[in-house]
Every structure is written in C-alpha cells, then in structure tokens.
C-alpha cells in the first residue's frame, strides 16, 4: 500500500522527500487508528488507580480497577505482578519476559485492594538490557484471545 501510495504521489509530481514524510505520517496515523479500533472492539477500557505512586519497598498501597467496557471483560483477572525482562541484542532484538510474582487481586472492582511490598523486594530497575518491572496487569478474554493491559507501578528502595 505504501509503495502504491508512493507511486501515486510521484504521478502527481509530489517531491519524493515530501512523499516519504507524508507516507510515514500516514503509517503512524494508521497504527494509532488500528490500535484505537482494537481497543474499542475488544479492549476492556480498564483504568487502574493507586493510592500512591511511586511506592517504596516495605510500604502498603491500595489499588482500584474500573472496567469501562464490561461486555469485553470475560474472565477478567487483575494481578499484581513483578517481572524480569531481558533483551538479547543480536541481528534482531529479542525480549525475554518472566514473571517472578503473580498475585491475583480479588474483587478489586468493587473495593480497593491492599498490596504490601515486602521490605526485601527488588525495586524497579532499568538498564540497557535488563529491567525489573512491577505492574498491575488486567487480563480478559476478548475477540478470541487474551487481552492484557499493563499499568506499571514504580517501586523504590526501602527507606534507610
């Protein structure tokens, strides 16, 4: 489609550089449009609110989850998750993700849930090829697949 668009613009005597910029803009817009349409069709419209952000290891905070489109929220699960991410930079970039904690939050839509971060928990950390990420994950079955929304929570080192 991009190639066809490029030749159409060339036939209209549009400058090749302008065509390139224009088509890049169209591509980005199309990506946003597809993402927004998918969210409207299959997304849960989940919104997560936390009582404090960032939060320190050893502290407790409260979480509440609101689902905007309940018709899409089949098999809804809300989880407090800690995960490791590693990036392999070779000919292409491969990302490895492994949760080390998955704690389901029960009835988090009706009332806020309390989460206590252990004092010896690994805080959030980000380097070039490794990351420790804490987040609230909202999972639901929609459109024949599993839809996940990730709401990162910044966990800082405990107060010394």
């Amino acid at each position, binding site marked *: 489609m991009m190639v066809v668009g490029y030749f159409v613009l060339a036939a209209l005597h549009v400058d090749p550089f302008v065509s390139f910029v224009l088509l890049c803009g169209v591509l980005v817009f199309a990506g946003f449009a597809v993402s927004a349409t998918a969210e409207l069709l299959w997304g849960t419209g989940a919104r997560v609110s936390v009582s404090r952000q960032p939060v320190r290891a050893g502290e407790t905070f409260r979480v509440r989850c609101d689902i905007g489109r309940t018709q899409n929220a089949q098999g809804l699960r809300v989880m407090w998750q800690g995960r490791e991410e*590693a*990036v*392999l930079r070779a000919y292409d970039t491969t990302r*490895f993700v492994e949760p*080390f904690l998955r704690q389901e939050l029960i009835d988090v839509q009706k009332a806020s849930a309390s989460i206590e971060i252990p004092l*010896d928990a690994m805080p959030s950390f980000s*380097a070039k*090829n*490794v990351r420790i990420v804490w987040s609230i994950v909202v999972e639901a079955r929609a459109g024949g697949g599993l839809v996940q929304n990730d709401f990162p929570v910044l966990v800082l*080192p405990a107060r010394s």
Partner: protein
Amino acid sequence: MTATIVLRKPDGRFEPRERVDGSASWSLEHAPAWLEVRLAWHTEGKGTKEVVVIGLERLRGVSAQDQRTFGLTLPEMPYTYHGRIVSILWSVAVFGPGGRFWHREQLLATLPIVVSPTREPIGERRT
C-alpha cells in the same frame, strides 16, 4: 603473574551507598604502565550481557610487585539479584594493560561482593 584483592570487610557483603575499602596486591613480570581497580555490576542469564562500571581508581607509578589501598562508594541500585532468567552480580576487579595490541586490557583479579539492604542477595535463587 598474580594479583589479589583483599577487602576490609572480609565477608564481602555491603549495603547500598556503603564504601568498599580494600587493598590490591600484585606480582607481575614487568612494572605495568597502569592498573585500575573497578567496582562494577554485570548481568548473567538470558539477554545480552551488560557490564556497568560504577567506580574506578587508576593506580599510577606502580612497580612490578606492589600493594595499594582503594576506596570506592556503592550506588543506591541495583542490588545483587538472583532471578529466574537474569542475575545481577557485583564485583571488585583489578585490570592492567593487555599483553597483545588487540587486548587493550586484561583482568588480573576479581572478587565478587553482595550489595543489598539485607546484605543477602535478593531473588529466588539465593545461593
């Protein structure tokens, strides 16, 4: 050709922001142009290995057999971590000039340390 690192705290367990004091001694064939003590963390496990040097002390005017003290301060993060797919490991190391022109430097000695508020590695595999 030998080199040894001895820490003032022999258990090698530190809290974040603590100072790592110790001494490095070596016995080499020739007096090196330079030696460096480096405090660094690196990753092991899945993904591309990452090595980050947090602090270094360049030792100049050293002789073939010598001993020098050093003091380097740890940052707040990261902690020593043994996870499911990645580990973050701290160490103190002594580097010197490489023997060949394509080896700019060579590792002479390394000593692993543990950095965490509990002075124990964080994570599931704590061995």
